[in-house]
């Protein structure tokens, strides 16, 4: 079986003063009969950017709040700096936190907000001011220090919140869906900026999001959560190409999950699947022409149900012989083939063998 080389390498350890590791061990938290965290283990390397990704109610925010110190877990350990900090109050942990609604102080100016953690640490006013201004420069808000919070746009507030969380040089930065209140284009811009900021400062970061594209864009590793558990944790590319469960496959990207029997020829597929019953196929991996070079291409066929032009690609819904519908994303290179299609037409789809991924039986 051919395997694509996937980046599984974590970023180099920088060993800077700001970076620190966090070990989360068997963390549990229940609200009544609801298990928000079900024995979560997570090992965060120094300087690493981890996105915690999951649908609402999956426990991702609970996990972050437990690390921040706002929610006491029922059991388990959070080891930071060589000791368990589960019982330590949030104020003692010294982690930077960016909240979903930013939680900026409306009665203070931008500069006062950013200088607040420094005042708490009893820095001299002149030094606090200097460092707060430097933090504002870091988030590209120089000159905004005198503004009132109410006079800022959503994106600017987000930057102030970020500056306030990093100004005291915390060893850990925690972000709880920090971009969810922004519109799409601003959100995408901020994703790149937050990533660049992390590359510069290398603060160990835990970043909660429900947006899979955001997680793929921003993180070194993605921890996918479902029902209070981390179901898979790996680099974005592995998470995308080699999901370990159908939940991960469906939650990230568009994928068809088909029984191995739906693919032909059976002998080739059987050899690739090696006993695993289901195949995961990314909708953009389907080819409308036989791939060149592959001795025995894998094939699946059905009838076109409908097709929609979506700008960068065509989305074709195909109904297979057994009745399952799958979504196929045909790139521009197949526009000749798409032009000949109409609802009801027979369609043959090819798959390069190296794009096939198989799932084991799930409990």
């Amino acid at each position, binding site marked *: 079986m051919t395997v694509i080389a996937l980046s599984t390498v974590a970023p180099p350890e920088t060993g800077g003063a700001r970076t620190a590791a966090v070990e989360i061990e068997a963390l549990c938290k229940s609200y009544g009969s609801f298990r928000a965290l079900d024995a979560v283990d997570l090992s965060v390397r120094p300087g690493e950017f981890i996105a915690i990704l999951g649908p609402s109610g999956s426990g991702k925010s609970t996990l972050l709040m437990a690390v*921040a*110190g*706002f929610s006491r877990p029922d059991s388990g350990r959070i080891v930071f700096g060589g000791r368990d900090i589960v019982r330590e*109050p*949030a*104020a*003692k942990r*010294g*982690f*930077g*936190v960016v*909240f979903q*609604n*930013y*939680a*900026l*102080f*409306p*009665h203070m100016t931008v500069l006062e907000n950013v200088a*607040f*953690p420094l005042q*708490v*640490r009893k820095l001299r006013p002149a030094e606090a001011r200097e460092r707060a201004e430097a933090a504002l420069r870091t988030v590209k808000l120089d000159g905004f220090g005198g503004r*009132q*919070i*109410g*006079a800022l746009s959503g994106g600017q*507030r987000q930057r102030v919140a970020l500056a*306030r*969380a990093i100004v*005291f040089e915390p060893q850990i930065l925690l972000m709880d869906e920090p971009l969810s209140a922004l519109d799409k284009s601003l959100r995408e811009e901020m994703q790149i900026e937050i990533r660049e900021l992390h590359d510069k400062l290398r603060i160990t970061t835990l970043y909660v999001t429900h947006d899979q594209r955001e997680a793929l864009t921003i993180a070194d590793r993605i921890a996918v959560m479902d029902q209070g558990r981390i179901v898979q944790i790996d680099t974005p590319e592995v998470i995308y190409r080699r999901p370990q469960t159908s939940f991960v496959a469906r939650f990230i990207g568009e994928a068809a999950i088909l029984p191995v029997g739906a693919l032909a020829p059976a002998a080739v597929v059987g050899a690739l699947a090696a006993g695993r019953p289901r195949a995961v196929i990314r909708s953009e991996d389907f080819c409308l022409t036989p791939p060149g070079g592959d001795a025995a291409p894998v094939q699946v066929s059905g009838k076109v149900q409908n097709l929609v032009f979506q700008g960068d690609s065509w989305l074709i819904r195909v109904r297979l012989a057994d009745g399952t519908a799958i979504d196929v994303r045909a790139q521009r290179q197949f526009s000749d083939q798409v032009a000949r299609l109409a609802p009801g037409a027979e369609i043959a789809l090819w798959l390069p063998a190296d794009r096939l991924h198989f799932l084991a039986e799930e409990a």
Partner: protein
Amino acid sequence: MSAALPLGENQTELARDARVERALAFALALPCLIVVALCVLIPCGWLFYLSAFGNDGSLSWENYERVSSGASYGRIFITTFEVSLLTVLACVGIGVPFAAFVNSLPPRVAGLFVAAVLLPFWTSLLVRAYAWLVLLQRNGLINTALIDMGLTEAPLDLAFNWFSTVLGMTHIMLPIFILPVLGAMRNIDPGMIRAAASMGASWGLTMRRVFLPLAAPGIIAGAILVFVMSLGFYVTPAILGGGNVQVISMRIARSLSNFSNWGAASALGVLLLLFTGALLALGLMAQRLILGARKGQDHA
């Protein structure tokens, strides 16, 4: 900017709709405005009118001259303001911590505590004043208990003084103070408190720098409300002060009941109204100063 835009063809129609809407909104306020006019504006005008006539029925400053020349009147004004100020301070001292406590409770339990605060609100002023007398007087419950326990030999003077007056007024004013304060505290995003903690702030620092400044609009509103209402208090100081605490409302009542002097009573009323108005304006200005610095905070 709108002047530069060409007039749309619907412009006149839209303007008419806006006028109709304004008229309808005004009609909603009309019943209330009529009541205010009948019960507030006309009696106040009458008060001004009466205060301008002397005993002999001629137009004169006589009533005001008497108030400004008599030292006892100055004393009464000062006492009235002092009693009111002490009531405000007592309300702030008791009410702010209480409201902060209630605000921290889960909603259902908080409702019980709010109900407990509002409960005395439903009983009569007179009943509450006499209830305090039952507790405070020389052979009242408190003194009897203290003597029986041997903590004191002679009964303490708890009633008929400033202490009992301010105590009784605070008791009555507390719900009026707590409601706006609690309202302001409810509006504070709990995330603010978490944010302060995440930055390392202690509980005390978080209260001082974040929580109380954010609750300040409610505290100021409550304080102004209590102060203004306290200035006109009659029943409570009359009963619990026992003649030892002379406030302006008592002097007004005496002018009328003992001397039937409407002119003098009106002059006192007018002066109280003016002083109250001036203080209210000062208070609102202070509030605007505090709030003006953070306009637009609410659409966070």
